[in-house]
């Protein structure tokens, strides 16, 4: 038991130092685990959650193709114009748009749609861009918490616990709406009410030809249709008898066909290659390596041991365990990468389910883990992939987001959102 645990801890420590690429670390560690006999290759393959991988790959392809249309830039501009270019209004409006899109598309890529246009809008209004970036980071992590496909932790939990798109929506969307409302109010008091723009600058926003943001009009109905179809199929996944991963890959394949089919023959290969290049293969292999490593420590009994320790610490009380997952998941997610933690906790939670009354009885624990792991990402600038994506764009645009500047507001605001969830979890599930 010690050696697999040591390998996992060392790998995790190396990931935290960020000196080496995380996918390289886990792939090497997974290979070592198999080579040393901690698990066989067949067991390693069995431990990989291909449903989650398919869901991730499918949604990444869909996002990559939709991005080419310019649709979401158009939406951002129209939102600003609908709010009469009021900076305070735009702060709330773009947050809402970001949160909504993040619920249905991976939140790390949602911000890629919205943030560049946000820079342009802030530049035209001659207001600081930082409040908008902060609000959009928060909104993307909040919105992504609402559904099965909004955030990778939810995909992992949903796949492992056989929770559907509808299950997530009914259980978590109300909490997300509450958290979003509270955060929007707080951000308005923090920044929104002091943002001012000259009438002439607001008039320039109103004069923007939003349709000019559409880069490929042909892709707009195709992308919208496929995304709506994806959501509908996920809602009725049970009736269809299909897993989320299959639905996502089918949708991605359809959109690829609609994208590359009408193009000239010579451009088709490039279009298809481009679509596959939109998949973040580093993240996919990171997941694969982690699944194998967690499979190794599960086989070695490490997770069983930790599960018994957790039962002893919580007295087998579902409510206490749920709140531990909520707050613990949030703090860990803020400070560390939440994906390895969630992947490790999943078999641990499944292992303690019988002692806690079975699968139905531990549902609040799953919901609490999802809330904590997703919302905790707002706690620090490194808390989630969406945060890092926005920070990267801000850096390259010459307006860096300071790590401590973000954390000074991010961490307390994140704690507020978890406090809201604490009340919600107790009220809704107990």
């Amino acid at each position: 038991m010690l050696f697999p645990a040591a390998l996992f801890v060392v790998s995790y420590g190396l990931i935290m130092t960020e000196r080496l690429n995380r996918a390289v670390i886990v792939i090497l560690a997974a290979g070592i685990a198999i080579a040393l006999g901690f698990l066989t290759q067949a067991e390693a393959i069995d431990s990989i959650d291909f449903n989650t991988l398919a869901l991730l790959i499918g949604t990444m392809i869909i996002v990559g193709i939709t991005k080419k249309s310019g649709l979401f830039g158009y939406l951002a501009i129209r939102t600003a114009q609908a709010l009469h270019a009021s900076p305070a209004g735009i702060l709330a409006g773009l947050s809402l748009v970001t949160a909504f899109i993040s619920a249905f598309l991976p939140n790390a890529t949602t911000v890629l749609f919205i943030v560049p246009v946000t820079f342009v809008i802030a530049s035209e209004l001659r207001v600081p861009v930082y409040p908008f970036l902060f609000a959009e980071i928060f909104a993307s992590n909040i919105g992504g918490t609402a559904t099965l496909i909004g955030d990778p932790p939810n995909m992992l939990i949903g796949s492992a616990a056989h929770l559907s798109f509808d299950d997530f929506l009914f259980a978590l969307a109300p909490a997300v709406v509450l958290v979003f409302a509270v955060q929007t109010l707080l951000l308005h008091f923090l920044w929104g009410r002091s943002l001012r723009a000259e009438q002439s600058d607001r008039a320039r926003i109103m004069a923007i030809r939003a349709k000019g943001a559409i880069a490929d009009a042909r892709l707009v109905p195709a992308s919208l249709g496929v995304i709506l179809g994806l959501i509908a199929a996920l809602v009725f996944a049970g009736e269809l008898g299909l897993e989320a991963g299959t639905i996502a890959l089918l949708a991605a394949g359809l959109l690829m066909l609609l994208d590359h089919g009408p193009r000239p023959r010579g451009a088709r290969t490039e279009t298809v290659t481009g679509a596959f290049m939109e998949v973040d293969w580093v993240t996919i292999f990171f997941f694969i390596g982690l699944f194998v490593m967690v499979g190794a420590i599960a086989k070695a009994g490490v997770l069983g041991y930790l599960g018994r320790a957790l039962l002893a610490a919580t007295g087998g009380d579902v409510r206490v365990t749920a709140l531990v997952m909520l707050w613990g998941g949030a703090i860990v997610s803020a400070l560390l990468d939440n994906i390895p933690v969630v992947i490790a906790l999943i078999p641990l939670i499944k292992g303690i389910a019988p002692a806690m009354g079975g699968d139905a009885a531990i549902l609040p624990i799953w919901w609490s883990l999802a809330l904590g792991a997703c919302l905790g990402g707002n706690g620090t600038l490194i808390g989630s992939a969406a945060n890092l994506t926005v920070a990267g764009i801000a850096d390259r645009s010459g307006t860096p987001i300071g790590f401590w500047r973000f954390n000074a507001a991010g961490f307390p605001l994140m704690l507020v959102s978890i406090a809201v969830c604490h009340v919600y979890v107790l009220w809704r599930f107990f």
Partner: protein
Amino acid sequence: MSCADIMTRNPRSVREDHTIGEAASEIIACNYINLPVVDGDGRLVGLFGIYDLLALLVPRVAVIGNLLPNLRFLGDDESELHRKYVSLKDNPVRRAVNREAARVYTDTPLIEAIRLFCRNHMTIPVIERGSDRLVGMISYWDAARHIVDPPSGVKGS
């Protein structure tokens, strides 16, 4: 054949504490693509050129990577572009200089300069090895002229 053999010696340059307005006037008056920027000791800091000037007038997010497909939605507003220029022109050029611009040494072979022309499509400053002092500039025109119509004394001419 090295870069020193075809470079324009003692090129016009601006100091890094000169203003963007001064550098812009020089570029436009002389139809330069690029102007070398030097420090107080004549050491090369980087290049400031016509593209760097124009890039100051658009949101930076629009010129980095592939984040924004276009700015067509903004429409034409010359007065706004001029207003932006006026707000920037008194800033020191060190704030806008391209410090990553390619450079060559006096003894760098011409073939390497040609490779850099093909990649970057801009003139290249020539610096003294060791001191990094600016000693010349070479353009693709200089290179092409020398190859197509070499001066007498060059093999094959």
